[in-house]
């Protein structure tokens, strides 16, 4: 996992290595300064002249500047390294996701991908900053301070041998008890936030059913539980502080007693007053370092989850690959399904499609009808190889779709997805998705075919009208027509509309179909629809039921022979024929 993530450091390796080096310099200097000061104090005590003092002072100030330089350098290198690492992680994940197949995308939900790209990367950035800076600083500080303390304090420094284990064990115990508690409570915390979100979204339901008090009670109960758990965890964490103080105090007292004993009995040879004071500085540094080490430990355990989630994306392999010798030419718009079965994942018990045999000639118009869950969308997604078949084969232009270069295939097979999306940008920006180099004339032409030009012309900015994220400022019917125009700009050999005119009125719907017939007769058109009227005049209508073909034929044929088709027809035209019957 760490290896996977570490690959994203790349150009920031230099900064990542420089940071700990500068940190080390900073630590060394910080540890020597008290040592020199101890000597200075003794010189002063011995009653030296001003010159000696000034000399010491110069050295010390120089060292302080050295330490400052190292500190600033390490701080800024660290910022570069950690932010750069985060940048690369985001980039690598985003690029990886661009290579995902539909199957990969289905596996991770959209919201989970967003979280991985944002919050999880932020967590890793923080942790990385901690690791290359503080995780280096603290152990170094610990060791240096220890060494210096022993050099200067001799026996008196033995105090640390007692205090450090106490603090270490104490901190370890605290972390050990508190970590599982935190993990549990964070889950519960997520849950109550989810319930708040549900309430905000579902406020109309809450109010309609007058469930305000019920929701309040429910929330209070859940929140009380979270609060109790959090308090428990925080109270254990709160022991950190007194524990630290206890250790500090013990050191202070021991140093005072044993230190002064050492000074007095040895007549200042083993230890003198200046060193005594420096010993206290070291003790403080040692304990602080330990404390930080424990914090880093907590931080790293917490971010392990994020690291794991990021690695999951980075190691995911796309389930669709370009063939080794791809075919770059799609001969015509014919589509053949030969014994096709399909399921969404190996593990799925049910096949979404079973034994489909269907042959569509180039230039035909084919309608597909079927209830919710009859796998209409699954069927057409196989044509542009958004998914691969589980058995059998799908051919376009007489060749298996798996033999084509994927981009070539998808440019020739344009799908207007059911859950379609417009992106923030002008109408032109959105249309250019179909063809980067489309001229204004071509765009207007496509919009005219899709019956979108009439409403676009009514917008004050016409084709430069800004579309909000998700197409929030156009109506459902307008959005669908823009999506169709966008697909038309590809000039595909096969055009597939997956329930793409459901919000368009029947008259416009008919106009669009008429335009298709007149202006792109050589293009194969496959239309999935709920409305019979949308497919009624197709060359061929396919009735799907439960992943199997229930019937194929023209409207008239199906009206005679197909039970489901008739039912659908009557459900939409009840009153008319039914009343007369």
């Amino acid at each position, binding site marked *: 996992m760490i290896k996977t993530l570490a690959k994203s450091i790349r150009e920031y390796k230099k900064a990542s290595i420089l940071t700990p080096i500068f940190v080390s310099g900073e630590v060394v200097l910080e540890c020597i300064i008290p040592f020199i000061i101890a000597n200075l104090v003794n010189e002063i005590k011995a009653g030296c002249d001003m010159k000696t003092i000034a000399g010491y002072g110069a050295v010390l100030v120089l060292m302080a500047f050295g330490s400052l330089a190292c500190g*600033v350098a390490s701080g800024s290198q660290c*910022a570069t390294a950690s932010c750069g690492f985060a940048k690369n992680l985001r980039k690598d994940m985003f690029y990886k996701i661009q290579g995902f197949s539909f199957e990969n995308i289905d596996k991770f939900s959209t919201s989970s991908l967003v979280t991985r790209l*944002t919050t999880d990367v932020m967590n890793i950035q923080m942790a990385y900053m901690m690791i290359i800076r503080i995780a280096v600083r603290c152990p170094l500080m610990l060791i240096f301070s220890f060494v210096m303390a022993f050099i200067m304090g001799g026996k008196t420094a033995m105090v640390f041998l007692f205090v450090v284990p106490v603090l270490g064990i104490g901190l370890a115990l605290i972390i050990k008890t508190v970590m599982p508690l935190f993990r549990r409570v964070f889950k519960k915390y997520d849950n109550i936030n989810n319930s708040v979100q549900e309430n905000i979204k579902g406020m109309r339901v809450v109010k309609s059913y007058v469930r305000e008090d019920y929701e309040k009670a429910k*929330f209070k109960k859940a929140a009380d539980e979270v609060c109790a758990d959090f308090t428990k965890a925080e109270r254990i964490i709160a022991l950190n502080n007194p524990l630290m103080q206890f250790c500090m105090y013990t050191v202070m007292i021991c140093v005072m007693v044993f230190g002064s004993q050492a000074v007095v009995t040895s*007549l200042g040879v083993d230890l003198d007053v200046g060193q005594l004071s420096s010993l206290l500085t070291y003790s403080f540094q040692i304990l602080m370092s330990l404390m930080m080490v424990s914090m880093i430990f907590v931080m790293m355990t917490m971010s392990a989850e994020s690291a794991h989630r990021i690695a999951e994306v980075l190691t995911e392999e796309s389930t669709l690959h370009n063939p080794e010798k791809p075919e770059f030419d799609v001969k015509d718009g014919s589509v053949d399904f030969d014994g096709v079965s399909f399921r969404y994942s190996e593990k799925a018990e049910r096949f979404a499609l079973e034994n489909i045999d269907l042959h569509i000639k180039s230039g035909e118009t084919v309608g597909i009808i079927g209830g919710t869950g009859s796998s209409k969308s699954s069927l057409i997604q196989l044509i542009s190889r958004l998914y691969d078949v589980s058995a059998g084969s799908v051919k376009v232009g007489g060749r298996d779709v798996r033999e084509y270069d994927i981009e070539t295939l998808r440019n020739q097979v344009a799908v207007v997805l059911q859950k379609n999306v417009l992106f923030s940008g002008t109408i032109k920006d959105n249309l250019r998705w179909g063809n980067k180099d489309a001229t204004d004339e071509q765009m207007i032409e496509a919009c005219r075919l899709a019956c979108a030009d009439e409403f676009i012309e009514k917008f004050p900015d016409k084709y430069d009208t800004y579309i909000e994220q998700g197409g929030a400022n156009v109506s*459902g019917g307008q959005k669908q027509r823009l999506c169709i125009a966008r697909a038309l700009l590809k000039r595909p050999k096969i055009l597939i509309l997956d329930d793409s005119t459901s919000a368009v009125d029947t*008259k416009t719907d008919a106009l669009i179909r008429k335009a298709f017939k007149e202006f792109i007769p050589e293009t194969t058109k496959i239309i999935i629809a709920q409305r019979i009227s949308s497919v009624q005049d197709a060359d061929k209508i396919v009735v799907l039921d439960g992943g199997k073909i229930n019937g194929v034929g023209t409207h008239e044929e199906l009206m005679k022979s197909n039970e489901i088709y008739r039912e659908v027809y009557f459900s*939409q035209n009840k009153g008319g024929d039914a009343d007369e019957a």
Partner: protein
Amino acid sequence: MKHNMRPPKGGPGGRPMAKKGTMKRLVKMLFSFYPVMLPVALFCVIFNAVVSSVPSLFMQNVISVIEKYWKVGDWASAKPEILSIVGVLVIFYILSLASGVIYNQLMAIITQGTLQKLRCKMFDKMQDLPIKYFDTHNHGDIMSHYTNDIDTLRQLVSQSVPQLIISAITIITVFSIMLYFSVWMALVVVIGIVAMTMVTKKVGGNSSKYFIRQQQAVGKTEGFIEEMMNGQKVVKVFCREEECKNEFDLVNDQLFEDAEKANKYANILMPILGNIGNVLYVIVALAGGALMTFNVPNLSISGIAMGISIVVPFLNMTKQFCGNIGQVSNQINSIVMGLAGADRIFELIDEQPETDEGYVTLVNARENADGTLTECSERTNVWAWKHPHGDGTTTYTRLMGDVRLNQVDFGYTDEKIVLHDITIFAEPGQKVAFVGATGAGKTTITNLINRFYDIADGKIRYDGININKIKKADLRRSLGIVLQDTNLFTGTVMDNIRYGRLDASDEECKAAAKLAGAHDFITRLPDGYNTELSGNGANLSQGQRQLLAIARAAVADPPVMILDEATSSIDTRTEAIVQKGMDALMHGRTVFVIAHRLSTVKNSDVIMVLENGRIIEKGSHEKLIADKGKYYQLYTGAFELE
């Protein structure tokens, strides 16, 4: 978690600023939550801070003792003196530790308790807010009160405030002790402090400037990521991967630049302050040395002569002093952010709740032999409006479901009226349908009947009673609403159906599900009625969710139902199958139906065609077809709905 990265409100100078009284209000609130605990905790904080800053006094004493004896090496005489000093120190330390444990524990309880109380306060308030609030506020923004703002507040209460108090007390105490020892040397320290403050202001100011930029860049990047992830399949279909990568690189690089700068400034602040501290340390040592060498008469409160016993503790105090200044500067950002968070939390708590001046209530009733109604406490399935009058009498009107709108005008804002002169009579058991384009005002009318919004002019009467006189809760209880966007709650399928009536038995819930045509698919779920739903029923199709919502309304068994595009996501064949159940459900109830599929509304008693907030046609399907007006055009497919 997308809402987490909201850029903070920019005040003057680009900093997130809180209103003036926020700190005061926060403190007041904390005291009112914990009138005993908080003062005790604060006392312990102060005590702890004072005690941990006095050891330098003891240090000075110990060193004077050492000075007295070390040249002769007489430990035997020094020992009792030192031990007695240390003994007192031990007592101090024990007190300090005790106070430390107490305040840390109390603060943990107070912090979490306060957050808990605020959460509940916000949630309670949120439940009481009118629908208008939710229609006019971004949902992510409301949510961030519970996540972002609570988090910043936690930081403020649990860490920044105690740290600030400790630092302030320590600084004051240490400075007093410094003056006690030597005024000259204290002055040297003051010079250092001034330098540190200036640096903090400069570097810290830059840091927060870039942090705000970073927040904005984060917001932009997240927005981009969210949009792209949502449209990922479209990206694939159009083979736009490369363009997306390029666009992403642009925002991602910008974020990197801002984040790098912000973190740089934040990272270098501490080394700078630390080393100013080091230099100050040296200067103090030099100054001490100089004072001693030149025998400058010491000016001090204590009157102690300048000597090594002063210089040594002074050095430690300098370190302590600088450390605390560093701590304070570290907290500045979180204090500013915390106050801004508190401000937003207070804003939500201060929102005006939904008002309710209604006094007519809905009660269970029993019918007497003479046809009059008497109130009773048990469930009788006969409901009555209890209407107390000014003269002290109370009348009971049977709940029938007769809804009349009389010349109603309405606008979401005063300037823009969206409904004009709406008059609708819906008699008990009638089915009234609304047809019209998006924005014609169909849903708005239903919003008025259940009083999510109040009308500007005209009258709405329910069983002859002006709905303004009916208590909102009782009015809504008598109406069942199924909305187009179905909202389910985390819990089992059964829980979700029971939401309609909390005391419904399992059998009643199942019966309702059968009526709504949901029973079949529910039994096919892995755990049937006990299947857990989460994420608004993410594992169900939109059609299945709508069926559940209908079952939920069915179990509530209200006399009036409003179906707002309730079957829009169910395909027509399934709808035809469900229709029988729906007809049974609607039987004997007043039903308002909004649908853009005309097959859904065709069998209504009255169909209202709305356009631009006005009813332009009304009548039965046959009449409207015969009239050859707008409805006829719609029916024959000449006009687009939605």
